[in-house]
Structures are given as structure tokens and as C-alpha cells.
């Protein structure tokens, strides 16, 4: 359970979140949606403890995220930012292995190796394990990153636009990987993800949080938030959700 209480955040001296209060469920896949500049990434970075709020609090299972030591926080939540400045030449196995770093701090044991092997298998990376990340396709790189977050074995995983710049096929691969992680029978965890693609949110999310201008517009189970009226008001343009061959799609109204 993540409790966000009267949270206000500034970035570069400009307010980006205003007095936001919200409770996020501990499990399942939660999508953060909203127009550009809504404050989705800022909220995610604040949840990750990477930026400090100007006012208010974020509590994870009752504990203030910003009061935790970085090392302790890394055992509670994993964060995956937008694309890195430089593509790493670590192998897939090495990269996923660094997800275990908060657990072993430099001395990996059998449990760490097992967690890495499990993450590689879950995301279909077994055959790519010894390849450098720089030689992979965009979708494979994202899956590697997600496997790394999975290996970190935290109850909460936060992802900032993991689908940006991905082809439809890769985007689908990544979303299915996230669903697999959220509903992994061995260790289900809460996955909070910023999404631009409303269709993806409509298809895969369990819960949806809609934001605009740094304020909360709606939050709840997918069916409650992903409605024509809410989406149209959120994006200031007519939108409608329709089911086409069993899948939710967003169309201009």
C-alpha cells in the first residue's frame, strides 16, 4: 500500500505537483496516465525517493519513503527511468545481476545467482544472456531492464514510460512482461507504470491513475477510470473506448 499525503513537488523551482493525495494498491499493474506536463514522471520519481517533496509525504506500508536509507529503500522498491544516456556494453546477465546489488553489495551468493537465472528465464532472455546489451533490439533492452528490476525482488516496481520509442511488437512484449511480473505466482508485486499509450493502459492495467496539471483527476480500478467522459476531459479532446475483437481501443469521438 502506497499512501501519498498532500504531496507538493517542485522541479527547477517550478511547482509540478499540487497537494496530491492518493492511495495506490500494493499489488497488480497500476497505470499513470495524463497529458504531457501532467506530472506523471515527477510523481514516479518522488515515489522512488529520487526527488524530495516540498511538502507532504509518501508512505510505503506505513514507512516514509524519503526517510529511508537509500540501501534500505533499494530493497523495498525498484525504479526504471527513461532511456539511458549511453547504451551499456554489459552482458544481459551482468546487467540483470546488478539488480541483485542491493542484496549482496558486491558478494553475490547462490541465492543471487538463482534470482538472476529466474529473471532471465521469466523474460525469455536465456539465449541472450551472454550478449552485450548494446547489441540487442530496443524491446530486448527494455526486457533486460525489466528483468533487472525483477531480480531486485522488491515488493514495488516503478517504471517511467518503458514503451517510449518502441515498435508495437516490442511494446506488447514489454507490457506482457510487466503483467507477468505483477502476477508472478511465485512473488506477485505492485507495478506502477507511466504510460502514454491509452490502449495499453486499457488493455493491461488493473488500476489507473489519471493526472492533469499536477493534480489528480481520477483513480481507481480500470473500468472506473477508463471511461469516455473521463478520458475526453483529461486530454481536452473527444475520445471514446470501444472493444474491438476482445481488445480495448481508444478512438477519436
Amino acid at each position, binding site marked *: 500500500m502506497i499512501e501519498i499525503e498532500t504531496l507538493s513537488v517542485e522541479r527547477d523551482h517550478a511547482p509540478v505537483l499540487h497537494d496530491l493525495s492518493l492511495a495506490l494498491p500494493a499489488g497488480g499493474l497500476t497505470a499513470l496516465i495524463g497529458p504531457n506536463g501532467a506530472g506523471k514522471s515527477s510523481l514516479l520519481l518522488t515515489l522512488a525517493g529520487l526527488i524530495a517533496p516540498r511538502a507532504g509525504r509518501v508512505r510505503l506500508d506505513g514507512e516514509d519513503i524519503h526517510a529511508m536509507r537509500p540501501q534500505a529503500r533499494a530493497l523495498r522498491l525498484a525504479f*526504471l527511468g527513461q532511456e539511458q544516456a549511453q547504451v551499456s556494453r554489459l552482458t544481459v546477465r551482468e546487467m540483470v545481476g546488478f539488480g541483485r*546489488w542491493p542484496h549482496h553489495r558486491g558478494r553475490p551468493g547462490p541465492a543471487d545467482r538463482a534470482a538472476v537465472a529466474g529473471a532471465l528465464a521469466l523474460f525469455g532472455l536465456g539465449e541472450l544472456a551472454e550478449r552485450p546489451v548494446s547489441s540487442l533490439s530496443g524491446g530486448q533492452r527494455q526486457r533486460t531492464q525489466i528483468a533487472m528490476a525483477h531480480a531486485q525482488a522488491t515488493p514495488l516496481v516503478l517504471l517511467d514510460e518503458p514503451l517510449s520509442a518502441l515498435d508495437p511488437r516490442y511494446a506488447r512484449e514489454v507490457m506482457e512482461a510487466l503483467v507477468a511480473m505483477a502476477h508472478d505466482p511465485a512473488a506477485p508485486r505492485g507495478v506502477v507504470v507511466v504510460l502514454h499509450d491509452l490502449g495499453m493502459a486499457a488493455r493491461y492495467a488493473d488500476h489507473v491513475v489519471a493526472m492533469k496539471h499536477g493534480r489528480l483527476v481520477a483513480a481507481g480500478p480500470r473500468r472506473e477510470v477508463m471511461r469516455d467522459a473521463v478520458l475526453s476531459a483529461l486530454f481536452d479532446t473527444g475520445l471514446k473506448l470501444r472493444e474491438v475483437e476482445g481488445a480495448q481501443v481508444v478512438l477519436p469521438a
Partner: protein
Amino acid sequence: MRLSLVLIFVLLVGASLGIGVADLSSVDVDAGLLLAISRWPRTAAALLAGAGLALAGVVVQLTVQNRLVEPGLTGTPEAAMIGLLGITLFAPGAPILIKMAVAALAALAGTLGFLALARHVPRRDPVLLPLVGLVYGGILGAAALWGAWITDLMQYLGTWTAGEFSGVLRGRYELLWLVAGLGVLLWRAADRITILGLGEAQARSLGLDYRQTLVLGLGIVSLTVAVVVVTVGALPFVGLVVPNIVSRLRGDNLRANLGPIALSGGAAVLAADMVGRLVRFPYEIPAGTVFAVAGAGVFLWLLHAPRREGRAHG
């Protein structure tokens, strides 16, 4: 690959000990003495300086997440020279260790200045950052030149800027062994510095103390550069060329690459020094000059190469 590298390394060291104006097999020469006071110190100095600068290069590249940057492109040696000028001016009699410490602190300040600058450089094009570093280093270098000119210390500045090993004798290079100690420190911090290379957000979300690791890494870089500048003079491109070639062949895991980078860095600088000794035998060309010529070529190749690798998404 590892065995062949070690073999090349041993051959280079053997050749370096054998090359010089005096003929070791001549009866007029005390070969043992010559080796002990000149040839071995010169060889060791080249190896240590090369190893240190190559390691400093990879640390800088991981820290700023840009493969085209090296200590010579972050204002580090120029800042060290400003520090050296200052201490030479205000405390000319200070022991060499103090001078070096001042140079290292100045180098660290200069490097952190570059880092502050780098935060405002757009990351889209990786070529931009080294160019900014070139300009920044140029400004610091000009300040050092001006300072040396008005204080009549131009001769000192000359020895710091042009890296060469002809003046290395027993008793005048031993400070470079500090590089070996820094190598050990780097070994201990290798994983943390590899994590720095994943970017600040990723590093911090893995529970890394980001600032502390950053200062540790750049502290090692600054100290290495300061020691090299004080003892043999700045050697450009070593930190750029060597880590890039090793990373292409062996990836980005610093702990696994530490040995190969140090060995190849030492071998590359030693080879450059030997070329400098042989081209106009018995006269010499500074190793730094030889390396700059070869390094500029490799740098151009590296500028061209990333286009093929696919920077963002493949």
C-alpha cells in the same frame, strides 16, 4: 586474448630495457647500473603512467556516461597545472608530496567544474560533451599559460604539458607507484563505478550512495592525473583510446576489465615512448607527441564508429 596481451607486454618491457643510446653489451657500460638508474625507471614510469591514465579514462567515461570523454577532455590536467603553478609560486620549497596534493585538489575542482557543466549539455549527440570539454580545458589551459607567463614559470609549464620520459631517472619517478595503490582502490570500488555508468537514477535506485561514489571515482581520476602531470607531464588520448578498445572487445564490466585496461594502457604508452626513442635515434620525440598523433587517428575513428552501433533503440 589475455595470454597474447601478457606476451606482448613482456616483449615490450624487454625491448624497452634494451633500447637506448648506450649499448648494454658493450664492455664500457655497467649494464646493471644503467638498468637500475635509467632504463628500468623509465620503463616503469611509462607503464604506470599509461595504466593510471587508462584507468582514469574508463572511470570518467562511466561517470559521465560518454565514451568519447577522457581526463584530457575534462579540464583535469589543466586544473592540476593551475594548482601546481599556485603552489610553486606561493611555496616554492614545499615537498613534492604537498605539491602533488595541491595539484590533485585543483584537478578535482576542475573535474567537478566540468561535471557541473556537463549537466547542462544535451545528451542526444555524444560528440557534444567532449567538444564542450575541449573548450573548457582550453580555457583552463589558457589561464595556466597566462599565469605562467606573468610569473615567469613558462619552463615549468612546458614540462607539465608535454608528457615524456627522457628525464626519468631513479629517484625521480617513484611517486608514480601511487597509481598502483589507486588501482587497488579502484578494484574495490569497481562494481560501484560500473553502477555509476548506468546513470544517476538507476544507480540511486539500486541503493548506491551516488555522490560519495562520484567523488571517490573522480578523486581517483584527479590524483592519477596530478601524479602523472607532476612526474612526466600530461599524456593526451591514453584514457580515451585504451578503454574504448577494451570495452569494444570485452564489454563494460569494470571489475573484469580493470586488469586488461591497466596492462594495455601501460603497454600503449611504453610503445609510444619506444617509438619516440627510435624514430630519430639517437634523438627523442616525446611519448605524448607520439601518442597524440596515433590517438587523434583513433579518436576520429571512434567519432565515426558509434553511428553503426545504434545509440538509442535498435
